[in-house]
């Protein structure tokens, strides 16, 4: 028996030792160099440029790939600047032909797909290849619509390709994303090795913005040939970083591209090339954002991004100094931000806070095609039953502002003060909601058909606690006007299928802008886009559609803004959406990071980051002094009780023996 005891004690003691010795909370053991640590709150998906659409894939891709144009890292409002284009394009007089000179001497990353493993120089032909592949039906791009109807010959090229591919496949041929890609597309042409010409089919005011998106980056044909489908996990581009390790469910590690072209941090002293008109560079210097003007990129040795999907660990990672940058999850933001200010803890650590209103809108979609929800007064009553202030304070912990219009402030078309079905102070107006409900034919929420309270379905498109709280609040609020709500939990694929089949009544959705133009959100209410298209509330208003069509070819002008405002008013009147909030993104940056100026529109800002590694090491150690004594006390207690009872047990056993 003693042997057993000894064995147990030895084991537990060694376990305790192993436990205590492994008690190092450092999640980056053995790391060398200046590596930026970031966390992503969702998984990245494919890194194949035509299908890059997800936020988190973009964050990786923007460090690896580059396109013709890029966002200026500091200028606000946003401005474009040349990237792989030598300078901004020359545009023909009718605004239809864009000519881009391509930067010389830029090399692709060194990669096994090239002969000898060394990256070759980028030419205009690579751009033709990459942009055409965006429209290849087999690439199954989520972004080809950017060029649809816009680039001359693009639609016809794509349609013949679709038809031919179907024919080839019926004939038993295997078709990949390179099949037929060499066919000429008159709108996208390489004039010579370093000149690219794009011809538009119609004036397209947003065209240049789309060229700064990751859909329009350049990559070599060799990589697609070499990796085939696996190209999605082996991106080869020209960016300042290249992939060293990619585990799509855990982390991505990028190291710096040793042959990166001479790309420098914009320097206000470099007149006139870098000093864009309208860039308030002095403010960027004063506020400590622009710290390394004129220095060559990249300023760090690498980036490690971890996919941390759960809110709590993502926040704790930042709090302990293990990530350099974070948007605090809403539930933890109270620990980081109080009101509009940093919490004392964060302030004492010199954490930098940037609050940015997100370019996007959270809304509750109401399916106007539904038998019940088709009733406009019902929709208005529902909108009035919502206390938007409560939503902002409690569901968003203050990190949002109530949306007055579906178009967020700062985007042309936004209009302050027009919200007929939202009270002046955004609180609920139950009496008026009840009046409207009576007009809708549901006095006090009673459905005349059944004689019972009207029952509506609210669909959630995910299983997170946050979504549950949102739905529960909707139920509480609608109950106040006598309506019962059934919450239905769906996975995102289930929700998608329901929306396509128009089989839902209410759903909580959100839209983030692809580029700063109200057309991007108004398209969600355009009649011809009804389900199975993206007009999920199946809003059908001919007047709205006419205005939308009229505005779509207009370039930015007061006239177009007026049209946008009229459309937004129609939406406010007809309530196909209950427009909820525009979220605020509070960005926290550790004191040892400088240079990067967060933007929620693009992810190109990351590569401007600089790090003070020595400071990071010192502070992280300081913030993470382990507390060992409680564990010691616990172990003592545990063994004390166990040991004590063993001793006691042995004694009684001994006595029994003696007695026997």
């Amino acid at each position, binding site marked *: 028996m003693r042997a057993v005891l000894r064995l147990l004690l030895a084991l537990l003691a060694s376990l305790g030792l192993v436990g205590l010795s492994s008690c190092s909370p450092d999640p980056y053991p053995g790391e060398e160099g200046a590596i930026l640590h970031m966390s992503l709150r969702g998984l990245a998906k494919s890194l194949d440029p035509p299908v890059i659409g997800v936020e988190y894939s973009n964050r990786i891709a923007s460090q690896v790939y580059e396109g013709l144009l890029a966002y200026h890292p500091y200028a606000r409002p946003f401005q474009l600047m040349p990237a792989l284009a030598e300078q901004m394009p020359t545009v023909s007089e009718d605004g239809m032909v864009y000519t881009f000179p391509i930067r010389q001497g830029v090399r692709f990353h060194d990669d096994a797909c090239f002969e000898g493993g060394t990256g070759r120089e980028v030419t205009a032909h690579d751009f033709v290849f990459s942009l055409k592949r965006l429209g290849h039906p087999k690439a199954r791009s989520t972004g080809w619509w950017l060029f649809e109807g816009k680039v001359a010959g693009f639609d016809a090229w794509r349609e013949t390709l679709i038809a031919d591919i179907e024919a080839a496949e019926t004939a038993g041929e295997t078709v990949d994303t390179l099949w037929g890609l060499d066919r000429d597309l008159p709108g996208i042409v390489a004039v010579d090795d370093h000149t690219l010409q794009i011809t538009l089919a119609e004036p397209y005011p947003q065209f240049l913005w789309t060229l700064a998106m990751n859909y329009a980056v350049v990559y070599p044909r060799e990589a697609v040939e070499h990796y085939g489908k696996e190209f999605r996990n082996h991106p080869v581009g020209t960016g300042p970083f290249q992939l060293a390790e990619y585990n799509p469910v855990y982390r991505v590690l990028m190291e710096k591209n040793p042959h990166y072209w001479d790309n420098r941090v914009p320097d206000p002293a470099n007149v006139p090339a870098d000093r864009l008109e309208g860039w308030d560079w002095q403010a960027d210097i004063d506020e400590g954002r622009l710290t390394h003007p004129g220095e060559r990129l990249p300023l760090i040795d690498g980036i490690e991004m971890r996919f941390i999907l759960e809110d709590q660990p993502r926040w704790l990672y930042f709090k302990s100094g*293990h990530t350099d940058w974070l948007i605090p999850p809403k539930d933890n933001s109270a620990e980081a931000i109080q009101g509009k200010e940093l919490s004392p803890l964060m302030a004492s650590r010199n954490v930098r806070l940037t609050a940015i209103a997100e370019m996007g809108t959270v809304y509750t979609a109401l399916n106007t095609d539904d038998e019940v929800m088709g009733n406009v007064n019902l929709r208005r009553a529902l909108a009035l039953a919502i206390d938007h202030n409560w939503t902002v304070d409690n569901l968003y912990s203050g990190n949002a502002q109530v949306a007055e219009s579906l178009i967020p402030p700062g985007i042309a078309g936004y209009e302050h003060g027009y919200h007929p079905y939202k009270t002046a102070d955004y609180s609920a107006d139950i009496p008026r909601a009840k009046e409207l409900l009576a007009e809708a034919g549901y006095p006090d929420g009673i459905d005349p058909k059944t004689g019972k309270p009207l029952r509506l379905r609210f669909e959630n498109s995910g299983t997170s606690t946050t979504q549950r709280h949102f739905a529960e609040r909707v139920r509480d609020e609608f109950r106040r006007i006598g309506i019962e709500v059934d919450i239905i939990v769906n996975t995102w694929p289930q929700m998608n299928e329901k929306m396509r089949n128009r089989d839902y009544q209410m759903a909580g959705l959100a839209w983030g802008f692809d580029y700063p133009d109200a057309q991007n959100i108004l398209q969600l209410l355009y009649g011809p886009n009804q389900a199975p298209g993206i007009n999920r509330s199946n809003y059908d208003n001919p007047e709205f559609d006419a205005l939308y069509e009229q505005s779509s070819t207009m370039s930015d002008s007061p006239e177009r803004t007026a049209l946008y405002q009229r459309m937004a008013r129609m939406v406010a009147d007809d309530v196909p959406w209950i427009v909820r909030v525009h979220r605020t993104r509070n960005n926290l940056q550790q004191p040892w990071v400088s240079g990067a100026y967060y933007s929620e529109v693009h992810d190109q800002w990351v590569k401007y980051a600089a790090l003070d590694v020595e400071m990071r090491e010192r502070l992280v150690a300081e913030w993470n002094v382990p507390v060992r004594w409680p564990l010691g006390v616990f172990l003592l207690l545990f063994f004390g009780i166990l040991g004590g009872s063993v001793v006691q047990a042995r004694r009684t056993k001994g006595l029994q023996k003696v007695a026997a």
Partner: protein
Amino acid sequence: MTGYLIKRILQAIPVLLGVAFITLVLFDVAGGDPCLIKLGKNPSEVEVQMCHDELGLDLSLPEQYLRFLGQIVTFDFGESWSHDTPVREIFARGLVPTLSLSVPAFLIGSFIAVVLALLVSFYRASLLDRVVTAGAIAGISVSSLIYILVGQWLLADQWKLFPVWGYEYGFGAVTFVALPILIWVALSVGTDVRYFRTVALEEIGQDYVRTARAKGISENAVLFKHVLKNCSVPIITRMTIIVPFLITGSFLMEIFFGIPGLGSTLYTAVTNSDLPVVKALTMLGATLYVIFNIIADVLYATLDPRIRLQ
């Protein structure tokens, strides 16, 4: 013996076919349309159709079933629908993290439980017995979610003894799996102690133990020579049966502690209607279950001569 094995394996085939069928039927009802995630915000009808064709979503259930059987036979489940990686690769990536968490936790937990169980059955009805059984019963009455929540909050966040989240392939894993293992052991030890105690007590109550004692053989010898030897049969069989659960059984821990294992993979796959991954992991789990049950039965028979296989 060989005949028995062949018989059991043949019996297992219809079971696996049934598992495949149930998986498919469940997803036919609950799957939704994964193409709309793949195609992004703005897909055209043609593309949706092409995607449906490629994924075989519009096939009839029997056709899909036949396809599925083909995949099982060739061990090739194609590519994940939600992150476009071959299922084989996802599996290879997730196996090590899962096992580095579940195997040590399982071994340590079982060891502590067996030792404690022997100890308390030796000193049965003493204070020790009461302390341990009371501790065990209290331990199993706490929700596993509370163990995880409080463990992470207290040990990692407040006392900074472990990293809150993360994983490192290779030896670095120790740092990250230590806390989940600790929690797992705390979670499982209660149940195991109770089970093994019952087993040991049943054995100690047997006539031969009394006879041995009466013959004056020392307690230690009785305990080790006879009791432990005979207890080992149910203990080993129980442990064998648990093995298949080590693959996806740790999903809560994996979700909370950021261990990129198969449990969290299966969880995300189900919530994203990623059928290929679900199919592969389900078939893997089911096959392991069937195999380890056969092993358990064989072991039972080999170790305990009283039992004959039929």
